[in-house]
């Protein structure tokens, strides 16, 4: 009789302990979810701030000034003319690393072949 009662108490105790452990896991998970949610919200708000900063640094006049500082003649990409006359070939006196080409002949070149950097 005593043994049966003891077993019942032990089993009840183990069950309670197991329930407590599960409860703790649930609480820990909820806490982690809340923490993740807070981090996602932080990241989102950081993205808002970055978007604003990028927009501030890419204003039309800033880009225009940057392009002007490269000291090159920029042509809008859609403004490509087809070949009409024989290609004039002019070599610079600097040693021939560069050739001045007519923009008309750039029409079929891939966009990334334009030298956009210094």
């Amino acid at each position, binding site marked *: 009789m005593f043994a049966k009662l003891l077993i019942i108490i032990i089993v009840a105790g183990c069950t309670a302990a197991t329930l407590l452990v599960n409860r703790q896991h649930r*609480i820990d998970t909820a806490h982690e979810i*809340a923490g993740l949610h807070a981090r996602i919200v932080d990241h989102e708000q950081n993205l808002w701030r970055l978007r604003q900063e990028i927009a501030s640094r890419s204003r039309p006049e800033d880009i225009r000034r940057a392009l002007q500082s490269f000291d090159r003649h920029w042509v809008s990409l859609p403004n490509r003319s087809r070949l009409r006359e024989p290609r004039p070939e002019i070599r610079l006196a600097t040693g021939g690393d560069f050739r001045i080409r007519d923009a008309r002949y750039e029409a079929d070149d891939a966009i990334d072949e334009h030298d956009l950097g210094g």
Partner: protein
Amino acid sequence: MQRATAWGRVMVIGMILLMGFQLARVVQLKISPNEKLAAHVGSTMSSRPEFAKRGDVVDRRGRVVATSSLGYRLFVDPKLVHDLGTIAAEIAEAIDADPVEIDREIIPRRDRRYVVIRHLLEDWQVDAIRRANIRGVGLQPRLVRHYPNGELAAGLIGMVGFEHTGLGGMEHRFDQQLEPQSGRLTYLRDARQRALWIEPTGYEPGRSGETVQLSLDLVIQEIVERHMQNVVASHNAGGGRMVVLDSQTGEVLALTDILNPREGWEEQTEDPMRERHPALGRNRCVTDPYEPGSTFKPFIWAVATELGKVTLDERLDTPAVGVYRTSRGRRIRDAFNHGNATWHDVMTKSLNSGMAIVAERMSKQQMQEAIARFGFGQRTNCGLPGESPGIVTSPRAWNHYTQTSVPMGHEIAVTPMQMVQAFAVFARDGTLPRVRLTALGPEERALEVTNRVLSEEITRKTRRAMRDVMTEGTGRRAQSEKYQLFSKSGTAQLPKRDGGGYHERRYVASFIAGAPYTDPRIVVLCVIDDPDPEIGYFGGAVAGPVVRDVIDEVLIYLGVEPDQPDIEQPMVLRRP
């Protein structure tokens, strides 16, 4: 053995009673704690808002015009502060501010629970306050609106007020679409305020506002504002207005309105709200009509031709010297006499006498209907607040003076927006576009309904005549080396504010043009208000060059090929 069994029973019963007592105690503490304990426990549920962002305003290429981010307001709860005497110094050290100023904010309000020190902190100040961890000092998140392009197109975009609601311009116009809806997060917390549990119904997500895409192009806007600032300054003008319209779609690509107050000049245009903030002023491109002068001639010229009142090569009795007298004796003066001119020459040389001759061949109803056809006397409904329908003489008040004045662009007042909308008819196939300030979506393009104003043939003839304005007439100074323009210049006297006639030697110089002539893409109108006559006042000389320069830059930016036949193609430096 029996003794051991008895002790065992006692222990078991004792343990059961103990556990039962503990259980009862837990229930009692949970349901009905005593007063002292209850004061410390309080509510275990917390709630905080989930901020949602106000919608972005972007230009036609998706560049950000207006956006929001989260900022922080610094506040103090004087009741929680340990020492009110030193709190100001602690805060000042953290945020690099004047402690005396902070003290002046806190001390008189020591009985309050919420005293604002700074409405908006910079990022480093927020970090500093967090690190300082001063008791009684808090950071309250709030939405902050940013306009990355500063005052560019400020009058069109508008701004938001303290409650993050739209005040003026597109911010006000689209306030409902832009407005966010904050959410809420309700959670069970522990003694250290950490979240323990969130019920499924405890989270309401926030909904950010919709993005509004304008028809505006920021690059074109910058081009326009730069040129207009220069011309207003160089001609010491009272102000200037310019509109750039995509003639094929009716989208407004750029719109600017400049006021230039000058010392000692009488009756200048004022806008007190604009002095408080550029975004709060009225937009004179829609609110303030003006007398268009000769820029109005193409509309009546086209309708008179279509009605068969005159043919292109018909010679009219325009005077070689002096003035022309109408059938009722009214005297009409031309800027320059040309003798017997053809109807085509009336346009290219901008002859008032020729317009009056043909105006007398039209009935009042035909003239009134011609004006209404092009949308004058009606709002364009582009969406900007305070739009004026312009001023058109009522049929009841219409007399011979009106009949002969309107074709010259007098006794009628139009807004710049009405002018570009109407002029776009000549840049299209004779249909009137609907001007708009929001980008046209693909579905809208497919379903666009337009109103036919002129036949295609008359449209082409009128455009041809206006092309000759550039080569033979008043637009010669505004000829472009890259693009063929079709245009009309106008020089009108500045009316007095009290309605008592016109100012002597004060004018409104205007110029309107479309380009390229071979395949028109844009229409540009420039109105220069009250340029200094000592420097220049004719539309073709003052406003014409600005329009030409803007058209050149804008069409190159849009990648439109030059259509001048002898243009040299640009060169590009390229690595082999």
